């Protein structure tokens, strides 16, 4: 349950090299309130010890030594307070040893008969400070160990396993475990915060780097494409062009997942970017156009069919333009090619012959979504599909 830090680190040290940018969290400083509380406790306990010694000094076997021990306790309180507030938590172990010895000095200061009769040790409740210091510095298990050492010292001093000793042991144990637990919890949450900040900073840094790299790659691909004719390798130029378009679409619109449940929101702009061939020019609004997955899938299937149809009839060298519009309560996707178009009457002939193929397939898909599919064509005017689907009731405008 304790949380030992990596060897060689101290509470006062800088919070490590993990965080390179942004705010940092000092894990050591997380328990600073507990140290302040300990210092306050020590000062109050010292005052109580002073009262106790002043009251009993006449009964001590060696009164002068008793005053000297008291003076030492005052000095030690000052030294440890300053050290703990500066983050020197390793002093806690020394503190425990010193405190135990001070407690045991009762044996030489006080009258053995008084001690045996159940008189208080010279350190009184002040001795609990070192146990609390170990608890704050090292956590619960070391705190329990410190309690054992303290109680052992008390027992050696008083030689009696009486109710007073058990009560002291209980109080020390409760205080030590409680404070130790608080220290562990405070450190853990500070460490988590630090990790979160580091992760965030690293992600931001990666994103920034990626953007730079992508930008550079786009520049080079663009340059290849532009200098295409001079390069004399049309295949390479075409590949560069395709990669440039897909990378640009990915960067601008982000990745897309269409496999989610029907109600998952999908950005149609990103989905179109991924679905369309590289030569397609995609015009879309600046903001994502989000619809549910269950609507996006058939809609994109229809768009792909329209694009494939353009490939088949206008050829893969023809222009292909796709316009995505968000009308709030509906979404429109237009797909246009600049091929020879469909001569008047061809569609009607096909319909009369019973095989409508692609046209009925696209209309069917849109019909199932409660939308419409308009086909505009004329010889030499290319083919233009306008696919319009309403968003389901209650579906927001997707912004």
């Amino acid at each position, binding site marked *: 349950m304790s949380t030992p830090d990596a060897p060689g680190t101290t509470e006062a040290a800088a919070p490590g090299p993990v965080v390179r940018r942004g705010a940092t969290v000092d894990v050591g400083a997380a328990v600073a309130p507990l140290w302040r509380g300990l210092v306050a406790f020590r000062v109050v306990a010292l005052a109580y010890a002073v009262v106790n010694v002043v009251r009993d000094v006449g009964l001590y076997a060696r009164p002068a030594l008793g005053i000297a021990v008291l003076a030492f306790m005052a000095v030690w309180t000052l030294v440890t307070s300053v050290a703990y507030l500066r983050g020197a938590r390793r002093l806690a172990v020394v503190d425990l040893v010193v405190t135990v010895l001070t407690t045991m000095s009762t044996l030489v200061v006080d009258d053995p008969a008084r001690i045996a009769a159940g008189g208080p040790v010279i350190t009184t409740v002040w001795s609990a400070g070192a146990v609390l210091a170990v608890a704050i510095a090292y956590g619960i298990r070391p705190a329990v160990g410190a309690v054992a050492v303290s109680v052992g010292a008390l027992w050696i001093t008083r030689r009696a396993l009486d109710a007073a000793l058990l009560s002291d042991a209980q109080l020390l144990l409760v205080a030590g475990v409680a404070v130790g637990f608080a220290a562990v919890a405070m450190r853990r949450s500070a460490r988590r915060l630090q990790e979160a900040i580091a992760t965030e900073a690293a992600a931001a840094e990666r994103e920034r780097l990626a953007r730079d790299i992508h930008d550079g790659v786009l520049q080079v691909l663009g340059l290849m494409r532009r200098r295409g004719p001079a390069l004399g390798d049309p295949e390479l130029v075409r590949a560069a062009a395709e990669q440039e378009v897909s990378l640009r679409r990915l960067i*601008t619109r982000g990745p897309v997942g269409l496999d989610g449940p029907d109600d998952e929101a999908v950005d149609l702009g990103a989905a179109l970017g991924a679905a369309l061939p590289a030569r397609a020019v995609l015009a879309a609004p600046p903001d994502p156009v989000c619809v549910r997955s269950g609507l996006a899938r058939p809609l994109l299937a229809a768009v792909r069919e329209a694009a494939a149809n353009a490939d088949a009839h206008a050829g893969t060298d023809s222009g292909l333009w796709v316009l995505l*519009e968000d009308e709030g309560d509906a979404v429109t996707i237009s797909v246009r090619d600049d091929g020879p178009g469909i001569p008047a009457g061809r569609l009607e002939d096909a319909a009369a012959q019973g095989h409508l193929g692609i046209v009925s397939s696209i209309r069917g898909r849109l019909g199932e979504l409660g939308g419409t599919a308009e086909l505009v064509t004329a010889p030499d005017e290319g083919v233009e599909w306008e696919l319009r689907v309403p968003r389901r009731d209650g579906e927001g405008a997707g912004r």
Partner: protein
Amino acid sequence: MVVDDHPMWREGVARDLGERGLEVVATASDGAAAVRIAPAVRPDVVLMDLRMPQLDGAEATAAILAALPGTRILILSASAEQGDVLGAVRAGASGYLVKSAQVAELVDAVERTAAGQAVFGPELAGLVLGEFRRREQAARDSSGPAEPAVTPRETEVLRLVAKGLTARRIADRLGLSHRTVENHVQNVLRKLQLTNRVELARYAIEQGLDADS
């Protein structure tokens, strides 16, 4: 004048333009340098990259236009960052071209920009359409002061541009003159650029005067 932080690209574009008989009066490696150099060389057209250190393309566009209002700015960008493109056009750029455009396309775009036309491809048209729809929605939601909206005819033209039709084809289809189509596109750009109150007021007055005459 060519502004781009990639040296290879900058020199390549400058050379291409030079070979096609256009005079490249200066090159600059970032927006801040462009703003410093522009007043000295007074370029007709600035080819401006968007993502640059120091000052980005949109900020440099605004700064150059503030100093030299007659300059025409054509955005030439690789990454098509949507917000950046719109930002630059709102700052006063009169056109946008992706970097992968062929040399001939680029030269044509520079010449059209110099002639005062808007280089307005389908991608930009799609962005602008979306932007005006967003504004419309926002105006309906907040009933705040209405920003200038596009007319139905302008929307029609924008949609056809976004579908990849040339100005001539659009003119044929809508039964308009080529010139009228160009005017519609110019108007849309101007409305997009009216962002501050002074410009809005001036726009309102102009509209009022037009209505009276």
